[in-house]
Structure formats: structure tokens, C-alpha cells
């Protein structure tokens, strides 16, 4: 494949580059008219029109006639077959909504900042509106939506769809979150823990794709883990498997939201990390700490490195119990790279039971901050009865979307 790559600068490579630009622009904006595409890519309308025709013939994009500002226009969207699924992720401070087609391609996504301790009614309402809004932006409607996957930063009991531990997500305890959203969208909603969904995504098409037993650690405002055993997610009886944020690390520590004392979250949760920096750095947000650590601020780096070590020692106990081949680390703290990962890895290897045959590997998440939302799309997809051609779901579309390869 490398040998027949056109030489850079040639006519063919230029056209290929333009093709990629157009596909990327369509991906970024969901649906665009040809005129808008020309503006977004900087290509001439004639070039856009030719390439769109080629791409439509190759089945990469769909075109439909609409009108913009009273004029006829050709709207270009990514080709999708059989309908769409939605993924919704609630974090402590953000909401992400993504739409994916049945080939697991994300066709639209948007994030939104949320207030601390956001209210369940407002947040669910916003999520539902965002889903519908993006369906419309793609030129489709609710009837094309087949299912929804919902990620929550709390353990979820799979059987009932309720949050399994009270107090972790303030105000969300008594509401059947899945049912509320399902009523709004008139579609089945599958609710799960964000770390569990991250584990599924990293197992299906991420850093743990080639192993059967893995642990996904999600270090964010709190810490959680998803455990894959034999290629299947282990949720436990009521969904609290992998809740490493509530493993006791300090018997004399502070009281946790869950009601126990000295949980890992009270030591490495965002509140604890920010409190440590308050005297020296003033009030910061978790994002600030991560940005500053990346910029080389020694205090912020130290706080994140120490958190990595603490998380690592707890992950080591879990790894000794489960014996995974690989530990995949995601979540916001992992965005600092080796600052967080190196101490975590050292702590895991120091505390885990030594294994002569295959020592556990500790690697960063391959899907980055998209792991959870991709997991949500994956479970939404699993809930859909696909009566059509099975080869479609078994061979996910190449993410590069290079028409030559298809």
C-alpha cells in the first residue's frame, strides 16, 4: 500500500489531499452545502463540486437538495446506512452528545460546560435538546434515531438503570435517568458508568483491542475503573465493580460523598487536588491544573504526579485480583501524559504481584477523551436489532475514510 502512494506534490496527491479536506470538513460540521464546503476548505466551488460527485459515487457522502437563504443548494452529509445512535456523556462539569451511524463512525458531536452539581432536570433536558438539534443538523429526525447510550460518572445498576451508590451524583439518586430520557426521545436508553463505557470502547477499538483481560482507569474529577474479563465487561452484581475511587487509602482521612472514610476520591478527587494548590496558586479549576502541568508548572505537576502514585497503588491491588494483561489510563488527568502515567505505572509495578510470564502493561488510552462517548455509542448500537447485512457492523468503516481503500 505504501509503494503505490502518489508522490507528494503530484496532481493525484493534491486531489487526494483535497478529498480528505472535504471529508474532514463534512465530519466537523455534520452537514454542509457545497458553497459552505468551498468556504470551509478554501477550495473553489468547481473543485468541491467535482470531488463531492466522486465521493457520492464512492458512497462516502450523501447529497440532498435543500435551500439556503432562499437559494437552491446541495447539502452534503456523511453517508450513513440504517440510521443513527446517540451517545450522551455527563461529566461533573460537562455534557457531551455524539451521534454515530451503525458503522460506529461519529457523524456529529458537541460538548457543553455544565455547572458544578448540575441539576438533573436541566441537564437531561439539555441533553435531549442537543440530540434532537444535531439530528436536525444532519438533515434527519427522531425517526432515524435507533437507540441512546448514556454515560454517568457514578456506578449504575444495569438491571434497573438506577445509580447504585447514593450521594455520588448529588440530586440524581432518586430519578430513573434512563427512563426520563427515553420518554423524551421515545427510544431505548442504556445507562452505564462512564469508566465501564470507556473500558468497552478501549477494548473494542482502542489500546486494549488485542487483549482479553484489561482494566480501564478513568482519572477525572473522581476516579473509576472498568474491568474487562475475557473480553466482556464485568459490572458486578449491582454495578459497583471497579469503583476504585471508593477504596479506602487513609483510615483517618476525610469523609467521602459515599459515606465511608478516607476513600481514594477524598485524596485524588478534584476537590482534594485543588485544595492542595489553593494556598500557593489561588483558586484553580481542574482544567487549569492540567493546562499548567502541561506548561511545566512544578506545583501542578507535583500534585498530578502524586495523584498518579496514589491511584497506581490502588490499581495494583485491583490488578493483583483480576490479573489483566493491560491497564489503560484515560480521563482528564491522563491528558498530562507521563506526568501522571509514569508515577502510576511505577506504583502499579511496585505493588502488583510479580508475574514472570507477562508483567502488566500500563498504557495511555488510545481514544483519549472520546473513549466514554464511543463506549456509549457502542452500547446503544448493541441494543439495536440489526436485521440487515451483518458484514456492515462486523467491519467498521476505516476511520481515515480514504475512498481508495474502500
Amino acid at each position: 500500500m505504501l509503494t503505490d502512494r502518489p508522490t507528494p506534490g503530484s496532481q493525484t496527491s493534491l486531489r487526494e489531499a483535497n478529498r480528505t479536506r472535504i471529508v474532514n470538513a463534512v465530519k466537523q460540521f455534520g452537514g454542509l452545502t457545497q458553497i459552505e464546503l468551498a468556504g470551509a476548505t478554501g477550495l473553489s466551488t468547481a473543485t468541491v463540486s467535482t470531488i463531492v460527485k466522486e465521493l457520492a459515487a464512492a458512497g462516502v457522502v450523501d447529497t440532498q437538495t435543500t435551500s439556503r437563504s432562499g437559494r437552491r443548494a446541495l447539502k452534503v452529509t456523511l453517508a450513513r446506512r440504517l440510521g443513527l445512535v446517540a451517545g450522551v456523556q455527563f461529566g461533573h462539569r460537562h455534557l457531551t452528545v455524539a451521534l454515530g451511524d451503525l458503522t460506529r463512525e461519529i457523524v456529529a458531536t458537541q460538548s457543553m460546560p455544565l455547572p458544578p452539581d448540575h441539576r438533573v432536570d436541566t441537564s437531561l433536558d439539555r441533553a435531549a435538546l442537543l440530540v434532537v438539534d444535531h439530528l436536525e443538523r444532519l438533515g434527519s429526525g427522531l425517526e432515524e434515531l435507533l437507540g441512546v447510550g448514556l454515560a454517568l460518572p457514578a456506578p449504575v445498576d444495569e438491571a434497573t438503570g438506577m445509580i447504585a451508590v447514593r450521594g455520588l451524583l448529588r440530586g440524581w439518586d432518586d430519578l430513573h435517568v434512563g427512563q426520563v430520557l427515553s420518554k423524551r426521545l421515545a427510544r431505548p436508553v442504556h445507562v452505564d458508568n462512564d469508566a465501564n463505557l470507556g473500558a468497552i470502547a478501549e477494548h473494542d477499538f482502542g489500546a486494549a483491542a488485542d487483549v482479553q483481560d484489561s482494566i480501564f482507569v478513568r482519572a477525572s474529577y473522581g476516579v473509576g475503573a472498568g474491568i474487562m474479563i475475557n473480553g466482556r465487561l464485568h459490572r458486578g452484581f449491582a454495578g459497583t465493580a471497579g469503583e476504585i475511587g471508593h477504596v479506602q487509602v487513609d483510615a483517618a482521612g476525610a469523609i467521602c460523598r459515599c459515606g465511608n472514610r478516607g476513600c481514594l476520591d477524598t485524596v485524588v478527587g478534584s476537590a482534594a487536588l485543588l485544595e492542595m494548590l489553593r494556598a500557593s496558586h489561588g483558586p484553580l479549576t481542574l482544567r487549569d491544573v492540567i493546562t499548567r502541568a502541561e506548561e511545566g508548572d512544578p506545583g501542578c505537576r507535583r500534585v498530578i504526579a502524586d495523584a498518579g502514585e496514589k491511584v497506581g497503588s490502588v490499581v495494583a491491588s485491583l490488578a493483583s485480583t483480576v490479573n489483566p494483561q493491560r491497564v489503560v489510563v484515560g480521563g482528564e488527568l491522563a491528558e498530562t501524559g507521563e506526568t501522571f502515567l509514569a508515577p502510576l505505572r511505577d506504583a502499579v509495578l511496585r505493588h502488583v504481584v510479580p508475574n514472570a510470564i507477562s508483567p502488566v502493561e500500563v498504557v495511555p488510552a488510545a481514544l483519549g477523551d472520546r473513549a466514554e462517548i464511543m463506549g456509549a455509542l457502542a452500547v446503544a448500537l448493541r441494543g439495536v436489532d440489526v436485521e440487515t447485512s451483518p458484514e456492515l457492523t462486523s467491519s467498521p468503516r476505516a476511520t481515515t475514510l480514504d475512498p481508495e481503500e474502500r
Partner: protein
Amino acid sequence: MRPSPTLALRGIDKRFGHVQALSEVDLDLYPREVVALVGDNAAGKSTLAKVIAGVLSPDAGLIEMDGAPVTISSPSAARALGIATVFQDLALCENLDVVSNLYLGQERRIGRRLDEEGMEEEARSILHSLTSRIPSVRTPVAGLSAGQRQSVAIARTLLGSPRVVILDEPTASLSVSQTAEVLTHIQSLRDLGHAVVLISHNMTDVHAVADRIEVLRHGRNNGSFVGADASYEEIIAAVTGASPLVPPDHRARRTA
């Protein structure tokens, strides 16, 4: 501990005839911080914004930039000081495209010719840095949605790389996904190192992005809250006057 504020207002008074719009208002703005200005109708939020933007000059009070007293006599003086404002009406030209709107009155030239490519390039990169979803920088503004217009207006403030950005009701009458876009812009502005003032009625939006919430009531400061700690109830109480005025020394302790 903290560096001196980028912009500090001390004891600002402003009256229109018999209406005392602002009375001894204090406000400090720091880089990389979103300050939300909340209050009831006629609490003086927009008047304060106009004082900072140089549209109105205060009757009394002191304005300091980096600790040195300044006079903001006109909007262009404010711009020169690095203060950019997006007012509620956005002030965009419907018939002009995005690039022309961004550079209106401050066009870039090569010799006598307009530097169209250069402006287009920079416009695209600014919109990109705001993670904006405007597909084409050559679309006339008339063809954009309310949220997209808002992002053009915000992008325009970024051209002179200002130090203070003031946004007056940026999420009013926007759909949820447009609100999501604007809130994401506000976060990007903050992460780019600007001091951001957000004037809004929507408590959810305010809480989502504000680092500090300053309450105005009848033209006076009526409380200052750390965004992450303050509950809706506390802030609503300060806005409506249900809670007594927070004394200044208590305020200083809270924001420290």
C-alpha cells in the same frame, strides 16, 4: 499572593437624572478568569459594562489598569487599552460576510490593496481557536444562525488580542446547541488568558463557566461568590435581596 488585577474599578458612581444607576461599585478583573455579573433588571449590569467599554463615563470613582489609574473616555480609548465588548445587539452588518465584519474599520492592507487572503486566513484561525462551527468565513452574516453570529461577534473582539472581554447577555434567545457553542467559546477565551466578564440572567449558564460571581442590586455590590462553591439559592437570595448585603471584609475573605 495574587498579581494586581488587570482592571480594577473603585467606587464607581453613575446617575441619569434622578436615577442612581451605579453607586460605589467595586469590581476587580484578573487574567484567565470569568467573572459573571448577575442581577435583576435595572441592577446596573449593562451600565457597568458600558462604563468599562468607554460608552459612558462615570460621575465618580477610579479605574485602574495594572495598578495605574486610567480614563476610559471613549470606546476607541477602551479598545486601545485592550478592552473589547460584545453588546447584546452584536452590531454586525447583515450584508457583509464574516471576514468583512471581523475587520470592519480595521482592515488590513498590503500597500493600498486590501490583504484579503491574510484577513481570511486570520479569521479562519481565530474562529478555529474558538472551536467555532462557522463553516465558511465568506458567508454573509444574514445567512448565519443566532449562535454563529454570536461567535462572529466574539471573534471580532479577539482581533486586537484584548486583555478584557465583556459579553452582555451572550446566551439570551439562543437554542441549546447554540448556547453550548457560546459557553465553549467563553471557556476558550478564559483559557487563552483573557479576563472575561459575562453578563447573564441564566443561572445555569453562569454557573457553568464563571469562576467568580458578582451580584449587583440596585446599582450596588450585593455579594461576591466563588463560582464552584456558591449554590443557586445563595446567589438568587443575593440577587433578590432576600439575604442581607455581604459586608466588604467578608467578601474579601471569600474571594481570597
